[in-house]
């Protein structure tokens, strides 16, 4: 608890100089909780087979349209800056991931999660659960209406703050494309200080987690628009049939 931000930032800089990479390092000591939770053995290289070839399927029986609007879930309007986040889910070959489940969760405008484990003394918003779901459309587009989440403190080190973010959970067409990640907002000064974001040691790769402000998606006197596209890993089926387009 006594480690300072300065010390954490030094640790991050040393690791990044040694091993720039596009995927998060699982062994990343500046994020203290990784210490006993990262595998130490090299992963086994395995070809997918059987159930690994097919992602689970979701449909309109699973998700109601209203679940994509996080401002409508309770009786009144949540407090905060109303936003819409839209983008496409693509596979590693640029093809849209169609009619697939996207799940999100986030803190409220004050930086507090509607979760019993969150003890941050910021106000809960009775009109905001911070949970949403939708299905992508036939071109891979998803869209959520919400409020901008606040940054919040955590106990990784002294005066540690998470940058504002929205958690995203994604499926592709193959089981092996499963992804859970976090979307960040442009211009957030906390990103450079954050051991979770900085576990992606290649700055170009971290940029892929940062949404763009998109004025064409903002609505007059109503909300601000952001664009964030998500690219999953390659699909095995596509790999076997590269000419199938």
């Amino acid at each position, binding site marked *: 608890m006594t480690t300072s931000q300065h010390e954490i930032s030094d640790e991050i800089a040393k690791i990044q100089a040694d091993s720039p990479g596009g*995927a*998060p*390092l699982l062994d*990343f000591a500046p*994020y203290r*909780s990784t210490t*006993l*939770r*990262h*595998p*130490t*053995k090299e*992963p*086994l*290289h*395995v*070809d*997918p087979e*059987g*159930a*690994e*070839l*097919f992602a689970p*399927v*979701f449909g*309109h*029986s*699973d998700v109601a349209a209203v679940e994509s609007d996080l401002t409508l879930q309770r009786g009144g309007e949540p407090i905060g800056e109303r936003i819409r986040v839209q983008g496409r889910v*693509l596979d*590693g*070959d*640029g093809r849209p991931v169609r009619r697939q489940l996207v799940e999100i*969760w986030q*803190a409220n405008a004050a930086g507090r*999660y509607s979760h019993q*484990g*969150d003890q941050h003394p910021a106000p809960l918003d009775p009109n905001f659960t*911070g*949970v949403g779901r939708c299905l992508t459309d036939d071109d891979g587009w998803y869209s959520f209406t919400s409020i901008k989440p606040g940054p919040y403190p955590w106990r990784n080190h002294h005066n540690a703050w998470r940058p504002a973010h929205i958690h995203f*959970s994604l499926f592709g067409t193959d*089981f*092996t494309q*499963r*992804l*859970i*990640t*976090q979307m960040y907002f442009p211009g957030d000064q906390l990103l450079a200080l954050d051991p979770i*974001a900085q*576990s*992606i040691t290649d700055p170009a790769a*971290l940029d*892929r*987690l940062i949404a763009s402000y998109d004025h064409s998606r903002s609505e007059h006197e109503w909300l601000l628009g952001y664009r964030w596209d*998500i690219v*999953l*890993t*390659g*699909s*095995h089926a596509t*790999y076997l049939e590269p000419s199938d387009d």
Partner: protein
Amino acid sequence: MTDATPGQTVGPFFHHALAFPGDSELVPFGSAGSVVLHGYVHDGAGEPVPDAMIEIRQADASGVVPRVGGSLRRRGAGFTGWGRSCTDGAGHYWFSTVEPGLPFFAVTVFARGLLDRLFTRIYLPGAADAVDGLVASREDDGRLRFDIHLQGPSETAFFRFPRT
């Protein structure tokens, strides 16, 4: 191939978003032909991981991998071959399912403190060509048991697939 969007930890606050009624019951608990697959998730010190989430994907009893919706609203839905279980305070996960007609359950592991998802398999007891260390044991009451060790002397074998 386009560079993939990197993963990030699921964090500590996912339960209210990702857990749902019946999430770990691919078939109703106790129904005819069902089996319980369960185990504990441990960290490198052998301590339970109470904020992990396990997902499984599997074939049905005849060996067909279902490609139908309905997992999130299981009432009246058929067998979807997918489930999700958040560990409890003791690091315990469980599923009520059927034994797949193919030799393994495909498994994804998420946790606070784990910066990206991990893939592994849980093979049925007696499966031919199983990966060492990834075979479930059959308990006296018929349940299938498989513990997941993120680190340490019993560290679970995790996978890297092509194109990931």
